[in-house]
């Protein structure tokens, strides 16, 4: 009996020892990180120089304002903020209510019928508080994706003291045409002054609910010219719809509905869109981050791009 007891104790000792060793090695393994954790903040890509972009951001200062509303802050505006919003020299999120997002509270209510009021109030706010803080003033929706570097590049050859504005030029309703609201449009400093002055002097009024048409009419009244935002190969830079509307090749066909308002002859297929595209619209949250990935991260190593506008 005693020998049996000793035997049991001996085996228990072996078992405990083995179990402890297994546990120890298991714990050790889980504590050892397997991959290097990449830095959570801005990762500077190896062998990348952003000098030219940085210089341009100081020479061509852009104030962006995003048309948004309280229910969109989490589903849409947040993703603007996480992607392109931070690339503006100044970014303002315009809503009916002030909040810690932070949003600027305009003295209007929400709804499609209020869009032009929001636009008017937004530009009046910017004129009052930020006129000297930037050179150009961009309006975008909370589902517009904007490539700021390409916007600055396009604007760099223009003089902000001239009455000019740029965007995706549409034809109807306004003689000189007007800029699509969704694709985003950008006003020169003089254009902003004249817009605000127009309302102050009663030359421009809230005569429509459509913010892009309304603004376009006021621009025409105040003698602000519609600029041509196409690149040197005449490809569009501002886009009122997502990329998949324009890029796939099509057989020659009459204009589809989404190209009916175009001022310039639309091109379908690869020639639709500039390499240095400025905006796409109707972009949902996943689309925002996907475009961010395509524009700023994913690339073909060593590839010699075809389009080099500076060398043309």
């Amino acid at each position: 009996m005693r020998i049996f007891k000793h035997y049991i104790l001996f085996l228990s000792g072996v078992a405990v020892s083995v179990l402890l060793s297994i546990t120890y090695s298991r714990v050790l393994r889980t504590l050892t990180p397997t991959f290097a954790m990449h830095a959570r903040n801005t990762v500077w890509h190896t062998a990348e120089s952003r000098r030219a972009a940085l210089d341009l951001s100081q020479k061509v200062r852009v104030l962006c304002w995003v048309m948004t509303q309280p229910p969109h802050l989490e589903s849409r505006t947040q993703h603007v903020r996480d992607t392109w919003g931070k690339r503006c020299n100044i970014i303002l999120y315009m809503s009916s209510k002030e909040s810690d997002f932070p949003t600027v509270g305009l003295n209007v209510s929400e709804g499609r019928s209020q869009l032009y009021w929001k636009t008017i109030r937004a530009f009046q706010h910017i004129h009052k508080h930020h006129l000297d803080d930037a050179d150009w003033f961009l309006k975008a929706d909370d589902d517009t994706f904007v490539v700021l570097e390409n916007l600055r590049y396009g604007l760099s050859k223009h003089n902000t003291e001239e009455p000019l504005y740029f965007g995706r030029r549409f034809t109807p309703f306004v003689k000189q045409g007007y800029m699509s609201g969704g694709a985003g449009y950008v006003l020169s400093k003089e254009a902003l002054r004249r817009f605000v002055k127009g309302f102050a002097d009663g030359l421009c009024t809230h005569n429509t609910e459509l913010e892009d048409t309304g603004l376009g009419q006021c621009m025409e009244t105040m003698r602000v010219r519609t600029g041509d935002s196409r690149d040197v190969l005449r490809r569009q830079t501002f886009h009122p719809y997502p990329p998949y509307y324009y890029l796939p090749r099509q057989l020659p066909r009459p204009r589809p509905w989404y190209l009916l308002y175009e001022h310039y002859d639309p091109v379908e297929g690869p020639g639709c869109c500039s390499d240095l595209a400025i905006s796409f619209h109707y972009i949902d949250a996943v689309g925002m981050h996907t475009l961010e990935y395509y524009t700023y991260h994913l690339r073909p190593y060593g590839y010699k791009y075809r389009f080099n506008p500076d060398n043309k």
Partner: protein
Amino acid sequence: MMSEGSSFMKGLILGGIFCLVMSYFETFNPGVHSESHQHLHHHLKPLSKDELQKLSESQMSELTQQVRVYCLIMVTPKLLVHWVTVNDTWSKHCDKSVFYTSESSKAVEGFDLQEQDEWARLRKAIKHAYENAGDLRWFFVARPTTFAIIENLKYLVLDKDSSQPFYIGHTEKSGELDYVEYDSGIVLSYEAVRRLIEMFKDEDKCPERGRALWKMPEEKQLATCLKYSGVFAENGEDAQGKGLFNKKSTSSLISDSMGQNPADVVEACCSDMAITFGGMSPSQMQVLMFGVYRLRPYGHDFHDSLTFLPPKDSDND
């Protein structure tokens, strides 16, 4: 009392010695993985920036010229739109691309293998590719639902000797078998293919028509035949350990990342040097083509050590 305690202690000590001895021989319990085994066979990365900079101009130029890729795209008439889209997009960046089809299509050109069985088709395609490789030393096999960035593939294998056996992609494990997933693309070196074709002759180890009641998918059959020839699957990764071969689409991966890493969606998601994305629709591929080869922010300049020129007669890159 004491003698009982000492029995236990003796047991404890013996057990401890036993464990030490076992772990020394690395045949210890499954809780412990052999790290060095993993390192040798599993992770394959491109040359680091430092290593690249150490190469001379002529070495660089030589390597760039040597790394040439033969793309085998395995199609069927059912996937006609994908077939046409791949033909119009990324396959133009291969040094040679052939669309191997199960049956011919009037709408578009392809190499008709006249074979309905997928594994038999793959075997025939690989044999044909090997015989027609010319001086191309790397083979890339993909379905037309996959989008590939060939420049990044070349960057990955730049310093790898194609006369050594390489079998690269996104690796998965099935029991004891490590295999490369088909949907994220399969990379094979010249030597790997040579050995594979030799193994094709062995009807026992590598049968053309499976004898089992169920059919093993081609990716596993391929892995088995390669394993018998001493060629093992390796996972293609970037310097940070992010997988370069993806079987999911870009939007699917971004969507996953939004759920898992909302503060850092893009950084946590996918590699800048990604090579493949699977499950892409034709219009997603057109957009990705634009996104990869054209869309970029002005003023961000990269000083890459290699140069790859755009292909001739192409207007969407």
